[in-house]
């Protein structure tokens, strides 16, 4: 106890200081003083008692802050910042909760004033009042202004808030949120107990649940259960219970949160989690700074780790190529999402190539907090692609080889015909053998054209028909006259049309070379192929020679060449037109560039 120093002379200021000290002690007001320059803090015994500190405990501001109720910390932090702002008035006035080291919860009203020198906070002095017992109702039963304000806040809270008697369990006060959520009126509610709302509990079970609070073994109790509304519907809730003093008696304060949405979110989260956990594709979540916070079992398997625990806690650069990681992360952060290939590094150091789809997770302020990535090992895909390409190339090569062999065989046939012709004496027989040789050569050229072309199913007419004309020109020794002009458009036809078209053209050109220019007469043979407006292809051989004999009917002639032309045009399902010119002859065959499904009749 501090005595007034009556036996020693004292200055009025000293006497006043002692008086103030005594008054604050009597009023239960704690005081503190903080020297910002030395960071020394004086806490009066009343503050130490309220906060549960011993007389000799060294308590820093950080210690105090760590004891402040989590929900009140942001407001306290903001108020401290405001009070320490040299441009402000230096005042601090906050009601907040504080956890005592022994587990008890106190409500404190703290007021302080910070003083500044040279634009810097140098000293703060303040008073702390423990208002725990006054919080709802004053000890005399008259609500303090703080208690009235607090209840007004609680009454409008969306949470259900109840006060119930610690002995009878009957509700002594409930807020609007509770009435609204449960569908009872106030009068009815004040006849009920928490057990009436909690179908999961019998009264003995509930009493057993709250026993540790009554015996002050614990300061608060948090549990989840179900509440039942007046209409019988139920919903999941989280209950926070603590013992308070209410109207001089002990009562329980219950704060209830409807956790329907949280439960639904938790269920969704569990579903998502199990989906990710069972996904075949590796999925990982890392912090922005590179620490792996999550990965699914597929990732552990793919990367050769025993389990996800072996990966979580590692760095991102442990899992992918250290050289590639910064560039990929930079691209991801720049765009928010990124897809690309990256070299993954297994636990044993071996690597494989992955396709990655990644995205950035931002906090409310838009700052990246996490990076998420899902991976597909494309080593197999690349290998399969290569195998498929190789297989196709092999088939392609085999098919080309077949065409090459067919061409060689046909060349052997022409040699046989040539050998036969050398033994013949009759000019007619020799001519027949030579004509047949030309026909076989036209067929051989088709196979040669095919094995040299990019497509093995489609034949480009320009090189094929061009090669037939060139070969015939060489065979007949065509020089300056007659001139052979070839004008073939860029056309492509299927294999089954190319052969008859080539043979037909060969017959027509041979016919013109043999008969249109007797005795070395001058002239020109023009070979053309083009697409008509109706989509068909027209192959034409025109000459300005002597023309067909007047008595020759191309449709009934016995000439093998012209009969072949007739039949090949039929095979093409084409239209054969012979025009007698002045001078010369034009023969045209027009056919569809795709064979009809049924083939030629």
């Amino acid at each position, binding site marked *: 106890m501090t005595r007034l120093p009556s036996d020693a002379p004292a200055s009025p200021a000293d006497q006043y200081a002692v008086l103030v000290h005594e008054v604050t002690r009597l009023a239960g007001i704690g005081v503190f003083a903080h020297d910002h320059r030395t960071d020394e803090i004086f806490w009066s015994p009343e503050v130490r008692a309220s906060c549960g500190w011993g007389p000799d405990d060294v308590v820093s501001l950080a210690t105090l802050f760590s004891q402040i109720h989590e929900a009140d910390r942001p407001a306290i932090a903001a108020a401290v910042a405001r009070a320490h702002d040299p441009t402000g008035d230096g005042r601090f006035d906050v009601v907040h909760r504080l956890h005592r080291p022994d587990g008890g919860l106190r409500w404190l009203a703290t007021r302080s004033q910070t003083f500044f020198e040279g634009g810097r906070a140098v000293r703060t002095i303040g008073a702390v009042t423990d208002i725990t017992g006054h919080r709802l109702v004053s000890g005399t039963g008259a609500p303090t202004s703080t208690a009235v304000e607090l209840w007004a806040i609680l009454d409008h809270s969306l949470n259900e808030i109840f006060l119930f008697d610690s002995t009878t369990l009957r509700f002594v006060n409930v807020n609007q949120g509770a009435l609204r959520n449960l569908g009872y009126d106030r009068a009815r509610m004040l006849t009920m107990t928490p057990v009436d709302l909690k179908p999961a509990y019998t009264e003995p079970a509930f009493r057993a649940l709250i026993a540790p609070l009554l015996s002050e073994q614990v300061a608060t109790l948090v549990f989840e259960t179900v509440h039942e509304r007046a209409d019988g519907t139920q919903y999941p809730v989280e209950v926070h219970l603590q013992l308070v003093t209410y109207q001089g008696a002990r009562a329980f304060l219950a704060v209830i949160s409807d956790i329907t949405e949280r439960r639904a979110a938790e269920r969704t989260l569990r579903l998502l989690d199990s989906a990710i956990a069972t996904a075949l594709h590796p999925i990982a979540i890392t912090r922005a700074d590179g620490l792996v916070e999550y990965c699914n079992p597929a990732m552990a398997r793919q990367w050769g780790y025993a389990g996800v625990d072996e990966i979580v806690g590692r760095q991102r650069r442990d899992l992918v190529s250290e050289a590639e990681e910064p560039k990929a992360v930079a691209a991801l952060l720049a765009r928010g999402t990124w897809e690309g290939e990256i070299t993954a590094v297994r636990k044993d150091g071996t690597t494989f190539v992955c396709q990655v789809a990644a995205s950035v997770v931002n906090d409310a302020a838009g700052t990246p907090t996490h990076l998420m990535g899902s991976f597909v090992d494309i080593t197999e895909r690349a290998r399969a692609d290569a195998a498929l390409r190789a297989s196709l190339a092999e088939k392609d090569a085999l098919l080309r080889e077949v065409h090459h062999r067919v061409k060689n065989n046909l060349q052997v046939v*022409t040699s046989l015909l040539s*050998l036969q012709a050398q033994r013949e004496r009759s000019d007619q027989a020799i001519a027949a053998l030579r004509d047949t040789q030309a026909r076989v*050569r036209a067929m051989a050229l088709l196979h040669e054209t095919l094995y040299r072309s990019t497509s093995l199913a489609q034949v480009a007419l320009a090189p094929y028909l061009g090669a037939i004309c060139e070969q015939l020109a060489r065979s007949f020794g065509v020089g300056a006259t007659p001139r052979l002009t070839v004008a073939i458009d860029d056309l492509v036809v299927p294999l089954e049309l190319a052969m008859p078209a080539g043979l037909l053209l060969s017959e027509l050109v041979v016919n013109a070379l043999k008969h249109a220019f007797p005795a070395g007469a001058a002239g020109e043979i023009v070979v053309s192929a083009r697409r008509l407006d109706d989509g068909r292809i027209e192959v034409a051989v025109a000459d300005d020679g002597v023309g067909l004999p007047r008595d020759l009917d191309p449709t009934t002639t016995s000439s093998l060449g012209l009969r072949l032309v007739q039949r090949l045009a039929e095979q093409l399902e084409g239209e054969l037109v012979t025009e007698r010119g002045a001078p010369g002859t034009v023969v045209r065959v027009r056919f569809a560039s795709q064979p009809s499904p049924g083939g030629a009749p």
Partner: protein
Amino acid sequence: MTRRRILIVEDEAIVAMDIAARLERDGHVVVGTAATGARALALARAHQPDLVLMDIRLRGPVDGIATATELRLEQAVAIVFLSAHAEASTLAGARQLEPFGYVQKPFEDHELRRAIDQAVPPGPVDDAR
């Protein structure tokens, strides 16, 4: 008509036979026909021909150009290549063996005659060989 001693290198026997018949009809002497590069080298060493008609594509590991290259290291024999198609890449290989002739298959008699005359110009031929 200058008679020349000619070696035919062609892996299709009937095609080789046809070429031989046509050459003989023109009065040339066919010293042999070979289907492979190795056989061609052996026959060339044995008969010392004036000219080799060499198919570029041959069965076996050695093609006509490689055979001709090796042959040229041994003797200054004229070579006329036979090929189905004037391929730029194959002809580039053949060009290193200048002088050389080239005939596109299938060829006419007059084309073969011209190529032979260009490769071994008409003149006195050592009949004693």
